């Protein structure tokens, strides 16, 4: 029995102890890091299993909500928690052999802060607390992006910093607005009193939240930092930005819109179209992109747009599809960025031309990359296919024919540039076999295994997705968990 709160506290604490470990032994840093993440993973598994039988309410300072900060882990939180920590754990393994610029301990410190922040964002039940974690995540991420201290990294980092700060400020404004009207910061409590809000306040708050959180959730036009930051950052950082961070931002947005503010039709429609425009614009931008990492960055934005689009549809079924798509995005992008990191070690630069024949040189990595990409563009019997088809089925259910057409168009564009990339990877013949160390392949292999497993048994996820979607739809249930029924 591990309290989920430890998954936030311990990384935070260890992060600040990193200089101390570094002084003790420079090599120990990454192992400490791995141990902490492993602990988090363990906590996530435990929590996930517990959530199956009912949501968990964690109360701080011994006071009942809504008067104190509380954590609430429902099916949605449990699922994302497991996903985040699992992926982070794989990245931690990957980082064991990675080349990291000195001072290494600071890198791991930032990384830990980032994980802790993201974890906090999905676990907390308090709006202001959410802001705090958003800041922790954001600031550590700015540091991580700029960590290489080269031109690209710094440029990306600064851009991210500026947009991120504006975003979190707006978010804070929104929180303040709500607080001024409702007088509480507990999400469930606000949700219960949302009727007190006048319509203009509600809409103004929504605008603040959408723009504020849209920066992290990579929604157009707040996502402009993404290509630069992704390209400039260390590979693993890119991976965690694309998988964990964007999902944390998305979670915050969805939580605020669905639970706190109540899903108005106008809000959902806006999400839908914002998602769609993000998707199309990102895919079109990726089409002519020569740098593979940047291309995948755009694709990542596009996928986020697709997920937001699906959330915007708002039906229970669509929410499940959206969550499924989000899970798949995490898996695929993890594979893509990590395998790209492996490839990047063998070649100078990640321009498409430079990567000619890399699939022959690194057959396993190439294959894994291909599977990740194919899953993303929906090859049957890979995990991505099922989420895409569920998404489209729910689109059809709501008779959204035009968006359906646009999503299909975006899929075609996506298929084109991914297949082109894969094609280039396998062009040419005279390449020596130089596969990388197994330990670096291991995380990618695990992710691909999950993709394949879900490809053949997508049903195993279904109950969890359903539970999570229900949590979002059923507002009063959520309020009830916090305010009334649940024993801490």
């Amino acid at each position, binding site marked *: 029995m591990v309290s989920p709160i430890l998954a936030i506290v311990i990384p935070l604490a260890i992060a600040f102890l990193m200089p101390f470990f570094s002084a003790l032994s420079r090599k120990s840093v990454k192992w400490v890091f791995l141990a902490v993440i492993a602990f988090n993973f363990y906590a996530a598994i435990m929590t996930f299993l517990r959530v199956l039988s009912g949501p968990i309410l964690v109360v701080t300072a011994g006071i009942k909500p809504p008067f104190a900060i509380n954590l609430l882990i429902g099916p949605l939180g449990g699922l994302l928690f497991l996903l985040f920590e699992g992926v982070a754990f794989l990245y931690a393994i990957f980082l064991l052999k990675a080349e990291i610029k000195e001072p290494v301990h600071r890198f791991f410190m930032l990384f830990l802060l980032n994980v802790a922040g993201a974890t906090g964002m999905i676990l907390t039940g308090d709006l202001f607390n959410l802001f705090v974690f958003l800041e922790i995540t954001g600031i550590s991420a700015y540091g991580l992006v700029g960590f290489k201290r080269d031109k690209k990294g710094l*440029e990306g980092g600064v851009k991210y910093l500026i947009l991120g700060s504006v975003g979190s400020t707006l978010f804070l404004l929104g929180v303040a607005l709500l607080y001024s009207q409702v007088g509480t910061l507990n999400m469930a409590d606000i949700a219960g009193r949302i009727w007190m809000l006048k319509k203009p306040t509600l809409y103004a708050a929504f*605008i603040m939240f959408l723009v504020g959180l849209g920066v992290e959730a990579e929604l157009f*036009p707040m996502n402009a930092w993404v290509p*630069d930051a992704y390209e400039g950052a260390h590979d693993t950082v890119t991976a965690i930005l694309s998988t964990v961070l964007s999902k944390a931002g998305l979670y915050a947005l969805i939580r605020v819109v669905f639970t706190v503010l109540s899903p108005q039709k106008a809000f959902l429609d806006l999400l839908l179209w914002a998602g769609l425009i993000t998707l199309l614009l990102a895919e079109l931008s990726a089409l*002519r992109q020569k740098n593979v990492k940047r291309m995948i960055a755009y694709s990542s934005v596009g996928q986020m747009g697709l997920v937001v689009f699906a959330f915007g549809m708002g039906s229970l079924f669509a929410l499940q599809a959206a969550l499924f798509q989000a899970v798949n995005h995490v898996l695929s992008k993890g594979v893509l960025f990590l395998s790209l990191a492996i490839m990047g070690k063998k070649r100078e630069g990640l321009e498409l031309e430079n990567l000619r024949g890399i699939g022959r040189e690194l057959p396993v990595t190439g294959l894994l990359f291909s599977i990740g990409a194919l899953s993303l563009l*929906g090859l049957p*019997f890979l995990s991505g296919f099922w989420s895409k088809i569920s998404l489209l089925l729910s689109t059809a259910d709501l008779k959204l024919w035009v968006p359906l057409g646009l999503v*299909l168009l975006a899929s075609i564009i996506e298929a084109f540039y991914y297949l082109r990339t894969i094609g280039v990877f396998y062009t040419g013949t005279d390449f020596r076999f130089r596969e990388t160390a197994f330990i670096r392949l291991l995380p990618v292999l695990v992710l691909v295994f999950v993709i394949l497993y879900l490809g053949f048994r997508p049903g195993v996820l279904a109950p969890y997705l359903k539970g999570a979607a229900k949590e979002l739809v059923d507002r009063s249930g959520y309020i009830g968990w916090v305010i009334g029924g649940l024993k801490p």
Partner: protein
Amino acid sequence: MTFWVIASYFLGGIVAYVLARPSRKIGAFVALLFSIYPLYALIPALDGGFYLRFTVIPYYLHLSFRLTLLGWFFALIAATLYSLSLFSAYSEKRDSFFLLSSMFSAGGLMGVFLAADYLTLFIFFEIMAFFSAFTFIREHRRSALKYIIYSLVGSYAFLAALLVINRSTGSLEITPLSGFGGSVPAVMSLFILAFWVKSAVMPFHPWAPSAYADSPHSYTPFFSGALSKSGVYGLVLAFFYIFAGFFKSHHAFGYIFAWIGALTALFAGIYALLQDDAKKLLAYSSISQLGYVAFGLGLGTSLSITGSLFVALGHAVFESLLFFVIAAVYIRTGTTMLTEMGGLIKKMPISFIALLFGIIAAAGIPPTVGFPGKWMLYEAVLEKGYPLLAGAIFAASITAFLYCYRLIYSIFLGPLKKEFRDVREAPFPALVPLLLLLIPLLFFGLFPGYVVDVTDSILREFGYLGVPHTPAKLLSGLGTFNGLAVGITMGAAFVIAFLVHAVFSRSRKVSELNNYTAGEVAEGVSMHYVADFYKFIERELHGFLKLRVEALFNWIAEGIGGLGEVLRRVYAGDIQAYLVYLILFLGFLFTLYRGVLRW
């Protein structure tokens, strides 16, 4: 059983992939074994179908399969061609990944033919498209991408159609559409687009020449002969089963489709004349043949549908035979360019004979498998009284003579090129498919009735009358065709002619230079008239040839790419711009909600 028909390919693909790594031979052999099993399982299933439904996915979706006669007909063709193509692939020393992807594409194709619901059909259609592209994406990225994008446009249109149907009727099962709420023509157009593209009927053909030309030579016969049949299968299913009610009550649709088919046959035939690459020539020829098929389907009488199915079978036999010959020739000469070959008849006699029969069938001359189908189509169009349509397909079949002759002449006749002085006959495995395909080529030409037995049952399933026939004889409303009679008379006539030839004194074999020029050929001057063979036609059709649908599609693709190039500038890399976006967006939102936000 049905499960294993499909699974055998996927399983075999993986096993062959693993085994082919250490030993190419074992890999190919194992792949062959796994590909023969479905044939073995399919052949006895002639009588009736059976229904098998199993749930792969314990989600809300399931896959279901059933064996219909139509599916069986095409599945058998596909299974046969695939097994044969492996012989050729063995000679070509194809690698393990080729075995994997080609096996998977064959499995996908089987899934398409055996699918009992739209989703299964879509899934296997996608698998087929992707893995067939993977067979050559490594060597020829451009054409593979072109192919896959055309396929995807088609299959996503199909996906949209299936979603619409599912939304309206609540079922994904492949049944005649009933209780559909929306616009039937619209959903039908979406539905057939995938199959239209796959059967490479104009105007959605531009992927085909490059894909057929660039795919591995041993794979192309299967690609052209069998994979394109998935398109025919889908069209048949759409016109006479799923949308049968609409199709029967809207003659104009069928008529227009018949014209599309006829013009495809004609235009593709003309394009075929002008190709310098043997595989491109055959690719256009393949498109042309599928034009006949589409034509017959559009006419929509029992005779024409039977004709179409027969042409589809014939096409599978002779077109793949021709492609197999090209593969065999390529093994020895290393080229598929017509202009680079010549005179190989002396070096590769077996390939020559196979090609000879292949072109006779492709030109539709009786008594080969190429004729009965065309005959039925002519009879059908005459019965309907559409003389112009008849003229169009007749013109198309004239082009078939033209390109067929060019093919055989350029490769096998004319003077032997110096560099091919020491060429030998193709290795035996590469000849196996040639020899085996000659059997159906002649047999079904002499006894077309055996095919019509099957097509009759298919037609009856769709509520059409069959075509009266005996094994050798076909009867239409207007006339009869007796394959055996033509065959026997032809044999007799040949004997007469040969006797005339044989009774007179023996001839003396002379060098090819001992001719009209009296050996006075200048060194380095080619006596082979191959380049610009039909220059006159090209010259006369200059204006017409400039009109290419491909240009339109390319323009659209370029447009999308250009749009991306422009829109990419949105991410200008300028932080000030980004902040402006953010503020503008805020402003936009406030404007959007101005009605609400008025305090």
